């Protein structure tokens, strides 16, 4: 149990380290981008000599770079400390990782599904795209023990009713024109 908990914590620290490195790279990219901002225009308008449109980004992205470096150092220190406290075998780490593996599958599927929904809206329209999105998203979130004919019927009802129930007020109260895809020639929509 102690080993499992240590490996879990180690995984958490490694995730945080990866995040810190990602953030460091992000702020580095932002600083690089500030050098691509056209200054000839900005200085003339601002009337200043030192301060232009790059000043504020440089200050705050520079600060972000320093802070992410501090976070990296903090994480490395914690990883070193935790890794030194116990040394699990590769097999033990793999077993712990295997147990935790399904936790990211559903979020990843949800993200892919959201992306597919956005892509499909232009082709299928917001109503049909919505039906499919809701069907699939509920199917992803539906717990194993709750699956059964009753849950499937409720899923179908919600999936078919909600897109219409949401679309109609947006269309007729707020006058928002959504892509209708295959429904674009049907008068009532």
């Amino acid at each position, binding site marked *: 149990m102690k080993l499992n908990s240590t490996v879990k914590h180690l995984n958490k620290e490694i995730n945080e380290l990866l*995040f810190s490195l990602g*953030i460091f790279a992000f*702020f580095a990219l*932002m600083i690089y*981008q500030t050098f691509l*901002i*056209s*200054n000839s*225009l*900005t200085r*003339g*308008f*601002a009337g*200043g000599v030192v*301060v*232009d*449109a790059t*000043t*504020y*980004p440089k200050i*705050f*992205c520079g*600060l*972000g770079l320093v*802070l*992410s470096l*501090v*976070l990296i150092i*903090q994480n490395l220190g914690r990883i070193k400390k935790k890794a030194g406290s116990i040394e699990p075998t590769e097999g033990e780490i793999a077993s712990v990782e295997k147990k935790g593996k399904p936790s990211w599958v*559903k*979020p990843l599927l*949800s*993200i892919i599904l*959201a*992306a597919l929904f*956005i892509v499909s*809206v*232009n082709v299928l329209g*917001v109503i049909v795209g*919505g039906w499919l999105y*809701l069907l699939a*998203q*509920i199917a*992803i*979130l539906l*717990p194993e023990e*709750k699956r059964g004919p009753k849950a499937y019927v*409720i*899923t179908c009802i*919600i999936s078919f009713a*909600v897109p219409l129930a*949401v*679309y109609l007020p*947006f269309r007729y*109260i*707020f*006058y*928002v024109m*959504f*892509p209708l895809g295959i429904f674009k020639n049907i008068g009532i929509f």
Partner: protein
Amino acid sequence: MQEFLAAFFNLCSPAIMGWMIVGTAVGILFGAVPGMSAGLAVTVFLPITYGLDIITAAALMISLYIGGISGGLISAILINIPGTPSSVATTFDGSPMAKKGEGGKALGAAVFFSFIATLFSVASLICIAPTLAKLAIKFGPYEYFAITACSMLLVAGLFGKNMIKGLISVLIGISAGMVGMAPVDAAIRFTFGIDAFRTGFHAIPVLVGLFALPEVLAYARKRIVFEQMQAPKVKGLGFSFTEFKEQIVNFFRSSLIGLGIGILPGIGAGTSNLVAYAVAKNSSKTPEKFGQGELSGVVASESANNAGIGGAMIPLLSLGIPGDTVTVMLLAGLLLQGIQVGPRFFTSYPDLAYSIFGALIICSFLMFIIENLGMRLFVKLLGVPLHFLLPVVMFVCFLGSYSATNNMLNMWVLLIFGIVGYILTRVEVPLGPAIIGFVLGPSSELYLRRGLQMSGDSFWPFIQSPLAATIMAVGVLFIIWKAVNGIRMLNLAKKESHTT
């Protein structure tokens, strides 16, 4: 007074009243369902408010806010799970009361004291905010920059456990706010060659993405399970007049705590209910009864969290500084309508200011009535599992984001910021500072550059202005104090681990 009455009667028009009833009911539902919150309620409705006139939009957002903060008490008492962080302390005694068969009394008292605490805080808001705004009216760019910078620093330090993560969160928000045209000279920045980003990210998909999608992804990763609850019968107000008299001191004390904490940027009802509970317990003659089903515990928690509503609105309306995450959303909603909140708010938009006061009062009454009459219905609606509710919320968010500018790009922005928000929550980086950074970052830059234009590119006037210097010193000293405190705690933990 006449203007206030005119605004009040305007709010009583069927259309606005209808929105407020819907908003309060939906807010209560969002507050009551664990895994959803008042902030999420305002976020989901943000695109809808964009299409309404400003008075209706403000009234709708306020009704969602009041309903959302109060709704948390239902699940806190009936299933021992706080619907929102603002009701954590309500579970300590509310749930034991329900288990003892006093659920009706707990619910009745919680709803009633939530109601009068909101009214108390609104009265304080009406008295304090315009006076504070009058003092702040002389502010120039130096002071405004100091205020925005200070509030971002305070929020960064107060949200989450790790201050560095809080600061990084603010900087991520500021970076997102920098995309597009720079203030003052409209120089194009950080568009990465995408023309659609020249006008910057629209606030709705960014805020909805940061707030709503992580909820769905978090649920997909780890399901929240809560048992089906039963609505107890509430006779009258649920408690006797003697019990009411016994709670008056506790009510005022807790409301003042809630109001005071609500005023401070970054700390909202999530903290005030716990502080008020601790103070009520320490002041009690029978502290051992707390946690066993003591009415005072419920009253303290619910008075404090609802008093925080008026408290959080004071810095928002008078200085333009949001007190908590929900008021950040309110600020974003008002900015989307082209309303600049701050010291000049009361003179520039008196009708809107009075309407906001009026909406706060009306929504308090609506909350009291709807919670009392609709308790059974809410309990039934809470039976709808999150695996059905969250996809629906997500679908509404996608459509709402699209409707902000009728642009498909908004949906992609929502998705990208949703993923960013999820990653941030996974590594325990608080989202509140990112949101405040995104909302306040552009104004902070604007005031900085205006100030520098006035001073001929010199930073000295920012320090020479006594008010700006004091405000910035508060922010910097707070961060230093947090850092020193963090190092001290770390050393203490090291010492303890060495001794053991």
